[in-house]
């Protein structure tokens, strides 16, 4: 009898043991935004790009600091101004067992511009390539029509899939998992739109063993629900911790926070579409002004000086923001050490306004979104209060981003609060998008909603973007940034800091690109 019990006990233990250890290597992560597809070329959307990086890999990857590091390519170099040579990694296998080679890269780049019904494709990244030559299975050469220094950075956004998949798979095949085949550290297991994505470890991964056997990503868009899921142990990590919970979580020793300054700047564009008039800016008595005050660099500078960036960072952002003096934080490529956040100086602002012919200030309406950036509506409110001290009457109007961005793009606002994440992590591209004279056909000033125009700056940007030498180009971009900021071409407010919270026993290496990657989440000894 006793023996039978013993056997039964051993049997139960034997059953339970692998279960217990398997549980150890499982982790659940709470995400903020929905994953709209498993097709890596269907929707160029940050949450998608972040999650799909587990399944697929680009030729070049980015480390947590945004630096380019080898992935499927082991090295790359510019042979001349128009030619790039990439050496590919050997002995890499896709999840279905087929070996990776240059043909897969060719087929992938061919598919990218031709994904049916894509709401935002990756075509921009491969478009500069006018000719592709496969030298051998592990060497590939790209030709561009004009010097294109950002090619390695662009290709870091395009994930490689097997040739057979690239040639015929539809977006639906990816979503069902049939075509979700990459070389990445995790394999596709399940995708339920707007609910969850489940991944399992790829044990044959070339980059070595991953910390987890199974990862479940849950979509928890409500911030309070996301925090509750972490507190109750339903997930072990959440991204985008709401600022209201940061103080509480940082004091609780059962949880740890990881945060890092991001490549997203929150800034103000001042409408300069017209010399004479500007929407929602008037004299204090409501009468129209005789000219557009935003055309005057002194007025722009005064509006920048009147903002207390430290107070915004301290009181509204719970210190999860860094006051900004340019378009990217100091650690990024092309930023100038000379550019510091403008000091808060309401008296100086008043003086400058008087010099510009507005001794009594004027009245304006601050427009902003209320569901796009961290605390966007509170930032707008705070700016209005600072302006009161500098003698400017400011009203605030915020609206959902679905309404806001359409109107902002049409130039319907005078003073608009916006944000910009520089995906290439180098300041040249953000200067070109935000501040070059609006000329979308040539890719200049595509998102210049202010229609700011400065021929000197245009020339500096164009020159920088055509310079292949890294050191020289950086110096040129820095000069361009100094020109732009010296003219207060826009008003930078701060860089967002993104924050992750982990349960006890886990540690996350925070990233500048705001990606939430299971491979950067590690168990720590309790």
């Amino acid at each position, binding site marked *: 009898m006793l023996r039978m019990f013993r056997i039964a006990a051993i049997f139960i233990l034997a059953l339970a043991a692998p279960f217990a250890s398997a549980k150890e290597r499982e982790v659940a992560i709470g995400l903020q935004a929905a994953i709209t597809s498993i097709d890596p070329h269907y929707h160029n959307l940050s949450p998608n790009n972040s999650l799909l990086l587990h399944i697929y890999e680009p030729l070049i990857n980015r480390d947590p600091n945004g630096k380019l590091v080898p992935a499927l390519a082991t090295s790359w170099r510019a042979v001349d101004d128009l030619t790039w040579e990439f050496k590919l990694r050997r002995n890499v296998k896709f999840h279905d067992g087929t070996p990776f080679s240059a043909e897969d890269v060719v087929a992938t780049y061919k598919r990218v511009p031709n994904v049916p019904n894509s709401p935002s494709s990756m075509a921009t990244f491969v478009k500069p390539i006018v000719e592709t030559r496969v030298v051998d299975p592990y060497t590939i050469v790209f030709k561009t029509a004009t010097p294109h220094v950002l090619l390695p950075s662009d290709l870091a956004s395009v994930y490689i899939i097997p040739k057979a998949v690239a040639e015929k798979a539809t977006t639906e095949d990816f979503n069902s998992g049939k075509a979700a085949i990459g070389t990445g550290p995790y394999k596709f297991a399940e995708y339920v739109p707007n609910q969850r994505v489940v991944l399992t470890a790829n044990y044959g991964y070339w980059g070595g063993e991953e910390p987890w056997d199974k990862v479940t990503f849950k979509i928890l868009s409500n911030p309070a629900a996301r925090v509750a899921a972490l507190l109750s142990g339903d997930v072990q990590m959440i991204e985008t911790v709401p600022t209201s919970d940061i103080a509480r979580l940082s004091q609780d020793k059962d949880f740890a926070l990881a945060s890092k300054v991001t490549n997203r700047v929150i800034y103000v564009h001042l409408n300069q579409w017209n010399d004479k008039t500007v929407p929602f800016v008037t004299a204090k008595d409501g009468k129209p002004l005789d000219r557009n005050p935003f055309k005057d660099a002194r007025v722009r500078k005064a509006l920048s000086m009147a903002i207390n960036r430290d107070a915004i960072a301290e009181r509204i952002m719970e210190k999860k923001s860094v006051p900004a003096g340019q378009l990217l934080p100091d650690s990024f490529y092309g930023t100038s050490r000379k550019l510091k956040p403008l000091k808060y100086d309401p008296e100086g602002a008043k003086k400058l306004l008087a010099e510009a012919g507005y001794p009594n200030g004027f009245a304006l309406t601050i427009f902003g979104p209320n569901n796009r950036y961290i605390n966007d509506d509170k930032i707008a409110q705070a700016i209005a209060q600072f302006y009161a001290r500098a003698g400017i009457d400011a009203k605030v109007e915020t609206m959902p981003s*679905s309404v806001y961005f359409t109107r902002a793009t049409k130039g319907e606002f005078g003073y608009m609060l916006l944000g910009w994440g520089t995906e290439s992590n180098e300041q040249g591209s953000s200067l070109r998008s935000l501040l070059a004279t609006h000329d979308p056909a040539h890719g200049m000033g595509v998102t210049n909603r202010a229609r700011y125009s400065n021929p000197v700056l245009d020339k500096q940007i164009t020159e920088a973007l055509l310079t292949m030498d890294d050191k020289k180009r950086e110096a040129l971009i820095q000069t361009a940034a100094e020109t732009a900021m010296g003219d207060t071409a826009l008003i930078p407010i701060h860089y967002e800091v993104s924050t992750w919270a982990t349960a006890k026993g886990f540690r996350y290496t925070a990233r500048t690109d705001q990606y939430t990657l299971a491979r950067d989440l590690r168990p720590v000894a309790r």
Partner: protein
Amino acid sequence: MLAFTIRRLGQSVFVLAVMSLLVFAGVYAIGNPLELLVNPQADEVERLRAAAALGLDKPIVEQYAAFVANAFSGDLGRSFVYNVPAIRLILDKLPATLELAAAAMVLAITLGIPLGLIAGLRPHSWIGRTIMAGSIVGFSLPTFWVGLVLIMVFSVQLGWLPPNGRGETVLLAGIPVSFLTLDGLRHLAMPALNLALFKLSLLVRLTRAGTREALMQDYVKFARAKGLGPGRVIGVHVLKNILIPIVTVIGLELGSVIAFAIVTESIFAWPGSGKLLIDSINQLDRPVIVAYLMVTVTIFIVINFAVDLLYSFLDPRVRLGGAAAH
């Protein structure tokens, strides 16, 4: 009868047409979906390509004409965001919402009517007062806040129930339902209670008021005088008479439970259609918004139609022909 059905059908088609036109124009007025869909770093060429791919490059009138033409062949368009037929996206999510709404209604009815009856029979006892105080709390606290408190107590502090999501589902007549599995019930409990709370309080108060009024009536006094037991007096004479207004209210509230589910769904990350609608509105995913409202309108039309038929069946004085009334 036939004339009534045909006229009703004609009205329904008209309502659907007006509805789709309004939503189309409404979404058009809100903003341009491309502003939210296309990556801001993309260039002009990419923007134009996306506009053409989604059919947004054509004038709005043409877009609407194309939509109507497709709708007649049963195609309500593909989601801009997910690139799947909008109707499939909705039908995938609808069972979860209907299950949540039904569970909440069942909770509200099975708890609300007995509690209201007790409170009505013993209005001055401590139990009657406690029930009434509780119903005030249920009435006045916002659903959002109660949901968070429930999660804090039952998931974070006690660790009894999972804080979000829908549990394991099984197929019942081809529809995935979660109330037949233990895991499903554990996930369903808190959202259903959260959603039921307001209706529960409403039913308690309604039942109590009805009971107190009925107890004053002569027929109750007479029944008691006749020597009937309290069980029969309450069960047959009181309850049966007060049920008429309660049933009417339950019918009316069923629709609003589905509508209010949006708040509960977002707190508990319940994968229902309310959450889908809100997300779609935020992303200006027009095909999903239009299809969702078309489905909702259709459901309401069908329910109303059924109610009308049922009414004429129950009450012979009501005629559906309409001709006699004029």
